[in-house]
C-alpha cells in the first residue's frame, strides 16, 4: 500500500549512500484526484490535549530527583559594568548552602554559533539580569537567602542600548571577538558590535529605481518582545567530570547536548538530555539557558541540582525576540509593478550571539515578501547591545520583515491609487518566476491566500476606511509573508512494534503545542494502516531517541513526517517478510493493504495487524523495528556568501496572508480588533483542526505583537519585567472573530504535499493590523506595537 502518484528517478542519498531511495518513496500529489488515505485530512483531537487541560502533564518544574539540591541565581543589576568584586562570604556561611559559584570559579562559555556566553559573568556583565553568581543549597529557601547575601561591586560602563549605539561602536559589548571559539554560522566583525552581516544581491537596484515611477522610503521599527511561555525555564542536572545528564523542557535536545558537550568538554555521547513536556516555548527553549548553570553546580557539588526560573527572572534573564530597525526603499511603475527594493536591517540582538545570526539569515531571505521583484538589495546586520538575548521567536524574524515590506506595499498602493489587495496580487510570486534569491519558484499559493484572507473580512463589500455611527474609525488592512525552513537539516525516527501489535514512535520532534505528537502518528498510520490510537510517541531522550536536528522552523511535520513514512514503509517490508515466513511463500506474493496482509495465492492466508489474533505471529520472532531518515543536504544549493543567490536555498517555502478589520477610538486612541481573516498555504492539511488551531493561537499572539507587547528599557534596565507591565493578550482580548482558510497547494516533496504551519500563523497578523489601523486613521504608523498614544499623537 504505497501512495505513489508520480515517480522520480532513483537517487542516492549523499548522507546515507548505503540506502537506496526507492523511487516510490518520493511523494508527489500534483492534483486532488488522487485518493488520500482516510487518516490524512482527519481532524483527530490532540493526543496530548486531555492530559494538559486536566493538569496531569508534568512540565520541567514538576520533576524532582532524590537527593537534589536547589539552585538560585544572582542576576546583574547593571546593564554594562565591570565586576570589581563579588563578596560571597556571607552566603557561604549559611548552613545548608553547598556551593556558591561566580565567574571566577567557572570559566566556562557556551554557544551554538559563537561560544561567547559565560555560564556566569566573567569580569564584566553585559545585560541587566545576566547571571553573576549561582548557589546550590539543601532547600530553595536557603538558596534564595544565600543569593540575597551576595554583594557585588560594579563599575558601570556606557550602555549600548539602541542599534544606533551599537553601530557607532564607541562602546564595544565584546572587546575582542577572536577570544571566542567560532563554530560557524556567523562572522563577527573585529572592532565592532556586528556579530554577522547578511547580504543579498539580485539584479541591479539602481537600475530598478530608475525604472520606477514612484519610490517610497521608510524607517520602521519593531520592539523587542518576549516569548512569555506559561512555563518558565527549568532544568535538573546530574553531572560529574565524565558524564552529564540533563532533564529539561528542551525544544532541541540534540542541540543542547552539543552545546553542553562542547562547553564542558564532554564526549558527545556522555551527555544525555532527557526531555520533559514543554509548557510553551516559541523558540526560547531552543537555547541552553539553565542547563549550563545546573551542570556547573552539579559538577561542583556532586549532587543533582535543580533550577527553575521565576517569572521575574524569566523576564530578566531568559530570552527575547530582537528589536529591529529597517531602512527600506521600494520602487514601482505607474501600473503598479514592483521594480526594486532595498532593505537595510539592524537587529538589536542583545548581549550574546545566540541564534541571532540565524534570525538575520532567515529573515534576510524573506525580507522582500512573496513578490516578484526583479532587483533587490538586502543588507542585514546582527548587532549586539546591552540587552536581553534575542533569539528564535516563532518565525525567525518573519513578522518583523513582513511588517517592513507590507508597510511599503500599502504606501506604494496608496501613492498609486491602487487597491492594496490588487497591488499585492499584481506582484505576487507565481510558479516559474524567479525569486529575489534567484530560485525558480514552485508550488506557490500566495495569490489564493491573499484573495481568501481578503474575502473573509469582506474586502470588496464596502470602503476600506469609514467612520461608524458612534464616531469610531474603522479600517481594513492586509498583509502577507514568505518564510523558509532551515535547510539543510536531517532527522531520523524509529518505529517499534510492541508485542501486542501497538507501535511506539521514537522521534526527536518535540510536542510544544504544534501537534506533532498527533500528526506524526497520523502519518505513520497512513502507511501502516494501523489504527492511529495504537501508535504513540515515546518521550524524548538523547540516550535512545534517534537524531533530529531541532524542533524549530515549522519543519517537524515535513521532515519528521517523511522520515516516519520512510520507517513505516520499512516496517511494511518487515511485516511482509514475517508473514511470508509464516505462510511459507515468497515475499513477492505478499500484499499489504491498510494493515491487512495477504498471500496472493492462498485465500486462507490473511491477517489484519489491528487484531489481537495477529500478535501470535510476533512471538519469538525477530522484533519488527524500523528506522526512517530524511535529510535535505542533497537538494540544498549553498547560497553564494556575497549575494545569497541560490537555486534552492530551502526545501520548503511557507506563505500566507491575513486581513484585519479594526476599530479605533479617536478619543482614547485605543484599537479594537473586529475580525481577522487568515488564509495559509499549508500544502496539505494532515489534521485540519490542528492547522486552524495553530493559526488561531498565532493570531492572538500576533495581536499582542501588534498592539501591546514591548520590552521597555530605561538606561539598560528592563523596567516592565513582570506580567502586569509586559502585556500579553488575555483570553478577554480574543474578543474578535478569526476566520481561517486552509489553502492546499501541495509541496512536491512534503508528506502528501505538506508545508509547515507552526510559525506562519503569526507572521502576517501584526502587519495586517498595523495596516488596518493606518488606514482607519489615514496615517501610516511606522512601528509596532501601535499604541493608543501613537494614534492620539499622530503628527
Amino acid at each position, binding site marked *: 500500500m504505497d501512495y505513489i502518484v508520480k515517480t522520480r528517478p532513483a537517487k542516492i542519498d549523499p548522507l546515507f549512500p548505503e540506502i537506496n531511495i526507492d523511487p516510490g518513496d518520493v511523494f508527489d500529489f500534483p492534483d486532488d484526484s488522487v485518493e488520500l488515505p482516510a487518516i490524512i485530512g482527519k481532524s483527530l483531537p490532540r493526543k496530548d490535549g486531555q492530559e494538559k487541560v486536566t493538569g496531569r502533564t508534568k512540565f520541567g518544574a514538576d520533576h524532582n530527583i532524590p537527593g537534589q539540591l536547589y539552585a538560585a541565581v544572582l542576576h546583574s543589576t547593571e546593564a554594562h559594568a565591570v565586576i570589581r568584586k563579588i563578596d560571597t562570604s556571607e552566603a557561604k556561611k549559611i548552613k545548608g548552602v553547598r556551593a556558591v559559584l561566580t565567574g571566577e570559579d567557572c570559566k566556562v562559555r557556551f554557544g551554538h554559533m559563537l561560544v561567547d556566553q559565560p555560564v556566569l559573568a566573567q569580569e564584566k556583565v553585559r545585560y541587566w539580569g545576566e547571571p553573576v553568581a549561582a548557589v546550590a543549597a539543601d532547600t530553595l529557601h536557603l538558596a534564595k537567602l544565600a543569593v540575597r547575601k551576595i554583594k557585588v561591586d560594579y563599575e558601570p560602563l556606557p550602555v549600548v542600548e539602541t542599534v544606533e549605539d551599537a553601530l557607532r561602536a564607541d562602546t564595544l559589548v565584546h572587546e575582542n571577538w577572536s577570544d571566542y571559539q567560532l563554530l560557524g554560522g556567523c562572522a563577527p566583525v573585529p572592532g565592532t558590535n556586528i556579530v554577522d552581516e547578511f547580504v543579498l544581491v539580485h539584479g541591479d537596484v539602481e537600475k530598478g529605481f530608475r525604472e520606477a515611477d514612484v519610490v517610497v522610503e521608510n524607517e520602521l521599527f519593531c520592539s523587542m518582545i518576549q516569548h512569555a511561555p506559561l512555563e518558565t525555564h527549568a532544568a535538573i542536572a546530574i553531572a560529574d567530570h565524565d558524564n552529564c545528564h540533563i532533564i529539561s523542557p528542551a525544544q532541541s535536545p540534540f542541540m543542547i547536548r552539543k552545546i553542553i558537550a562542547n562547553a564542558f568538554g564532554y564526549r558527545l555521547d556522555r551527555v544525555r538530555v532527557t526531555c520533559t513536556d514543554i509548557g510553551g516555548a516559541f523558540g526560547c527553549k531552543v537555547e541552553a539557558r539553565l542547563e549550563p548553570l545546573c551542570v556547573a553546580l552539579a559538577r561542583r557539588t556532586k549532587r543533582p541540582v535543580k533550577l527553575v526560573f521565576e517569572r521575574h527572572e524569566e523576564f530578566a534573564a531568559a530570552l527575547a525576540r530582537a528589536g529591529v530597525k529597517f531602512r527600506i526603499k521600494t520602487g514601482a511603475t505607474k501600473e503598479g509593478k514592483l521594480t526594486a527594493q532595498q532593505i537595510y536591517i539592524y537587529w538589536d540582538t542583545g548581549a550574546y550571539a545566540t541564534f541571532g545570526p540565524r534570525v538575520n539569515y532567515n529573515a534576510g531571505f524573506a525580507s522582500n515578501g512573496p513578490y516578484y521583484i526583479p532587483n533587490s538589495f538586502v543588507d542585514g546586520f546582527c548587532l549586539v547591545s546591552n540587552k536581553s538575548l534575542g533569539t528564535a521567536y516563532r518565525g525567525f524574524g518573519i513578522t518583523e520583515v513582513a511588517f517592513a515590506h507590507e508597510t511599503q506595499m500599502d504606501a506604494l498602493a496608496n501613492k498609486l491609487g491602487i487597491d492594496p489587495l490588487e497591488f499585492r496580487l499584481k506582484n505576487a510570486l507565481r510558479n516559474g518566476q524567479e525569486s529575489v534569491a534567484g530560485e525558480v519558484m514552485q508550488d506557490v499559493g500566495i495569490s489564493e491566500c491573499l484573495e481568501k484572507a481578503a474575502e473573509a473580512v469582506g474586502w470588496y463589500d464596502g470602503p476600506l476606511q469609514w467612520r461608524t455611527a458612534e464616531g469610531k474609525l474603522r479600517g481594513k488592512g492586509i498583509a502577507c509573508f514568505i518564510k523558509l525552513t532551515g535547510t539543510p537539516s536531517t532527522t531520523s525516527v524509529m518505529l517499534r512494534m510492541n508485542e501486542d501489535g501497538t507501535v511506539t514512535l521514537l522521534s526527536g520532534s518535540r510536542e510544544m503545542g504544534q501537534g506533532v505528537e498527533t500528526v506524526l502518528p497520523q502519518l505513520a498510520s497512513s502507511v501502516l494502516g494501523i489504527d492511529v490510537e495504537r501508535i504513540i510517541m515515546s518521550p524524548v531522550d538523547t540516550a535512545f531517541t534517534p537524531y533530529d536536528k531541532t524542533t524549530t522552523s515549522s519543519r517537524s511535520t515535513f521532515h519528521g513526517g517523511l522520515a516516519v513514512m520512510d520507517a513505516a514503509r520499512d516496517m511494511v517490508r518487515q511485516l511482509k517478510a514475517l508473514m511470508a515466513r509464516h505462510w511459507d511463500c515468497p515475499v513477492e506474493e505478499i500484499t499489504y493493504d491498510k494493515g491487512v496482509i495477504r498471500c496472493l495465492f492462498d485465500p486462507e492466508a490473511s491477517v489484519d495487524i489491528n487484531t489481537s489474533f495477529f500478535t501470535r505471529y510476533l512471538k519469538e520472532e525477530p522484533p519488527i523495528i524500523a528506522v526512517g531518515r530524511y535529510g535535505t543536504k542533497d537538494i540544498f544549493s549553498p547560497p553564494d556568501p556575497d549575494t545569497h543567490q541560490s537555486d534552492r536555498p530551502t526545501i520548503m517555502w511557507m506563505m500566507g496572508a491575513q486581513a484585519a478589520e479594526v476599530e479605533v477610538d479617536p478619543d482614547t486612541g485605543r484599537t479594537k480588533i473586529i475580525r481577522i481573516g487568515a488564509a495559509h498555504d499549508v500544502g496539505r492539511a494532515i489534521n485540519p483542526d490542528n492547522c486552524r488551531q495553530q493559526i488561531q493561537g498565532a493570531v492572538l499572539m500576533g495581536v499582542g505583537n501588534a498592539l*501591546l507587547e514591548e520590552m521597555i528599557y*530605561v538606561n539598560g534596565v528592563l523596567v516592565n519585567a513582570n506580567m502586569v507591565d509586559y502585556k500579553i493578550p*488575555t483570553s478577554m*482580548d480574543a474578543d474578535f472573530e478569526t476566520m481561517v482558510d486552509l489553502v492546499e497547494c501541495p509541496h512536491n516533496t512534503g508528506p502528501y504535499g505538506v508545508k509547515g504551519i507552526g510559525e506562519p500563523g503569526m507572521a502576517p497578523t501584526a502587519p495586517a493590523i498595523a495596516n488596518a489601523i493606518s488606514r482607519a486613521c489615514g496615517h501610516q504608523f511606522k512601528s509596532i506595537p501601535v499604541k493608543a498614544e501613537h494614534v492620539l499623537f499622530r503628527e
Partner: protein
Amino acid sequence: MLPAFKLLEPNTIEEACRIALDTDGMFLAGATDIFVAMHGGALFPETLISLAKIDALRDIRKTDQGIFIGALTPHRYFEFNQVMKTRYTAIHEGCAQVGSPQIRNRGTIGGNLCNGAPSADSAGPLLVFDAVCVIVGAAYERTLPLREFYLGPKKTALRKGELLKSIYLPEPVSRSASRYIKFTRRNAMDLALLGVSAYLALDDSGGIADARLALTTAGPTPIRAGEAERRLIGHKPCDSLFSEAAAIAENESLPRTSWRSSKEFRLKLVKSLTEKALREAFERI
C-alpha cells in the same frame, strides 16, 4: 517563590492591632497585592497578620443613612450585589473590572485601599460616593473621610497598629447616578492607566444639584477634581458644560511622564474620559 514568613491568625480586631503594634507584622487580607510583591522579591515581611479569622471585618450592615461594608469584602461582592449595581454603579463598575474572576474572589476592598496604589479601581468610585473609612486601633475607633486617607504614593493615613475595619457609604440621593471608566491597554488583568469616576445628582428643575469627580492614576494618589465639580454644580447639564468641566479636570490632574505613559497622553485621557463619564452618568439618571 514566596520567601519564608511567620503567619499569625488573630481572632479579634483588638488582638490583630496589638500584634501590629508590637511587631513589624503586615496585615494580610486576600494577599493579591502582598504575595505578588513577595514573589517578585520586592517585599520580605517577617510576619504576616492574617485577618481571615476576624468575622467582624466581613460585616455588611445597612442603616438608614447608608451602608457599612467590612474591609474583607471581596470585589466579587460589589460585582454581583444588586444594591451596588443599581445605587452605587460606579463602585460596581470599578470592582467588576479588577484583574480577573480569581483576583476578584480573593482581593478585598480593604486591601485595595490600604495598599495605597494610585490605580486602585475601587478608590475613585468610593471617593465620589463620599466614602468614610472606619479605622480601629488596639483600643479605639476613628473615622476619616476617604478623601483624607491617601497621603502619598503607597502612603495612607493608617498609623502603626491601626487597621481599616470598614467603609461607610452614605445613601445616594434619589435623582442621581454614577459612572466609572477605566482605561487599560488590554481587556483584563490590567491596572488603570487612567480611571475617571463621575457622580451627578439633579435637582427638581433638572439642574445639577451635586457633582463629584474623581481621577485615579492621574497623580500620586487618587484625587477628587474639586474645581471641575464646582463648575458643574448649579448648571444645566449639557455636552458643552461637560466638556468645560473636563478641561478643568485636566488642569487639576497631576500626571507625570513615566515609561508607562507620557503625561500628555494621560492628560488627553483625562479630558476625553471625564467628558464621557459625565455624559454617561447623566444619561443614567
